[in-house]
């Protein structure tokens, strides 16, 4: 497996008392395990605050989870020496939601890309580096003239293309895409989606694709993982999960993203509460007494399809 997260849990401290000890914790991830094969696109869906971004950050080592291990090609990324960790890290990269915030506003786009290419192969000659920069620019659908511009001279979609080009310079095996489309227009979304699909098919780069939009995730990913309050509630092949969602939460998410009225009431409970029972039980239309008391493990529906609901089997 290229990437595997094993029983990862992470909490963020909330407001502190007078003595500096946290009064409460935000339970961002609770016992999350996932695997990503080479060249695979795994979609992660959920509402704001469900822990999907924390999951992405743990996967690339930006957050060290309190519990659990993150393995890259079988090696624990947090137990490596700094030198070897640096080499390993070019294999997994991240693209953020807001491309303008992740690009240096005072650096020319060309210089930014050259810096990334320099990082990737410092033994190459100047000519080869320049070729690589041009090739990257072309690959993401930008022109050479754009290299002499600053990030603010581009539209949101173009900036996201540049952010992608910078990441591709390092020849990654996997990219964590954290809501890469949510700040863009529908028509631009579709062109970026096409670009992402091409890169995946031609270069074999895998994605951990984080989004709140089930339709977008469904259009790109091979497998999908639905999260609710820091827990995985459903995981399976995209076409199966989207055509016959098993978990009541996935069903509601799907019907709301299609513009139907889901009948769901209330807001998600606060993530500062100690996780107990099924996280969705307080809003679930099928909820029974048992649901709020005993926690629900992922049950296997069929090969590769798991659901955390005893009623869905």
């Amino acid at each position: 497996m290229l990437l595997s997260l094993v029983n990862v849990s992470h909490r963020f401290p909330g407001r502190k008392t007078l003595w500096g000890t946290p009064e409460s914790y935000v339970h961002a991830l609770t016992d999350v395990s996932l695997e990503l094969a080479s060249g695979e696109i795994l979609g992660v869906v959920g509402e704001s605050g469900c822990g999907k971004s924390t999951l992405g950050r743990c996967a690339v080592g930006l957050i060290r989870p309190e519990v659990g291990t993150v393995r890259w090609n079988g090696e624990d990324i947090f137990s490596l020496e700094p030198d070897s960790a640096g080499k390993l890290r070019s294999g997994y990269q991240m693209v953020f939601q807001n491309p303008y915030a992740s690009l240096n506003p005072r650096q020319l786009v060309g210089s930014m890309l050259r810096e990334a290419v320099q990082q990737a192969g410092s033994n190459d000659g100047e000519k080869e580096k320049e070729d690589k920069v041009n090739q990257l620019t072309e690959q993401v659908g930008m022109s050479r003239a754009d290299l002499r511009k600053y990030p603010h001279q581009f539209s949101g979609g173009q900036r996201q293309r540049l952010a992608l080009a910078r990441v591709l310079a390092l020849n990654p095996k996997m990219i964590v895409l954290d809501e890469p489309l949510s700040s863009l227009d529908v028509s631009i979304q579709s062109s970026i989606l096409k670009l992402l699909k091409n890169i995946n098919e031609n270069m074999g780069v895998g994605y951990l694709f984080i989004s709140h939009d089930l339709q977008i995730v469904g259009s790109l990913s091979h497998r999908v993982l639905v999260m609710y309050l820091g827990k995985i509630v459903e995981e399976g092949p995209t076409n199966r999960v989207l055509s016959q969602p098993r978990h009541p939460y996935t069903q509601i998410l799907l019907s709301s993203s299609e513009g139907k009225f889901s009948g769901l009431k209330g807001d998600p409970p606060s993530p500062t509460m100690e996780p107990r029972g099924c996280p969705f039980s307080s809003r679930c239309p099928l909820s029974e007494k048992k649901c709020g008391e005993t926690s629900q493990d992922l049950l296997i529906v069929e090969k590769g399809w798991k659901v955390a609901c005893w009623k869905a089997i």
Partner: protein
Amino acid sequence: MPVLEIKNLKIDLLDAEGNKKGRILRGLDLTMDAGEKLALVGESGCGKSMTALTMMNLLPTRRMKITEGSMTFNDRDLLKLKESDWPAIRGKEIGIIFQDPLTALNPVMTVGKQVEETLRSQAGIAKDPLAEVARLFSEMGLPDPKRIYHQYPHQLSGGMCQRICIAMALAASPQLLVADEPTTALDVTVQSQILQLLKNEMEARKFALLFITHNLRLVQGFCERIAVIYAGQVVETGLTGNVLKNPMHPYTESLLAAMPDRGKTGDSKVDLGWVPTPTDEITGCSFAARCNRSKPECSKIAPLATRKNERTFRCFYPL
């Protein structure tokens, strides 16, 4: 009898000296019947929000100027009104909800006080405003209204803040509600709750809704009629079901094709992703440069709005 009729509305963009720099709306026509749900759909920068602001007389007049057209609301041309006439209309007869509920609310005032203020100035209630606010809050589906009254916007979720904005917009029972992307900043599940709330309120209070969005999927089950706007012009209108099933304007078709769906990334025949900017000089059809059906005359002569079986479209070669 239409409640609102916009005819040939043109708005110019001005530079710092007040000279014409470009054109934001290039002759917009829109008709709304009483109690109707009309969706106004288009990409960013096509003039959706400027139309909404014009309806409230909130257009930034230093940089923009209405040069032509009329906007008839209840037999009065809104464009001919004086600023002193507006307080009787803005908020009272036409209400508005904005995209981001957190920036629409005052951060240093409790939400209850804000709604109470609106009630006092718009609906003119005097006795027991707290009870009236609480009643409005519970109508909006907010739990524990008395507690929420004393809370600040940052203490509430985005969905709750949007419910408060809706409460404020409906406080004076307007005849027309303009909702400018009211669910774009919200999660999908909250989005469907807010739509349900708007639907229920419309049935109870009988107002007309202008629903501005870029999400065609939302429009599908929610609005009876749809108007597709492109480069400051309505290019196609009709009943939602018909327009989405059999689009006649090539732009509507490509907008539909761009929607991602299971297993396909949204395949568009035309090169979407850029729209003409207000400073672009357009002769002929505004979509001709991106259209895959365009013929030489398309970029020379502007197509007029053609009416055919309840559908209106601006295209010489409709699908």
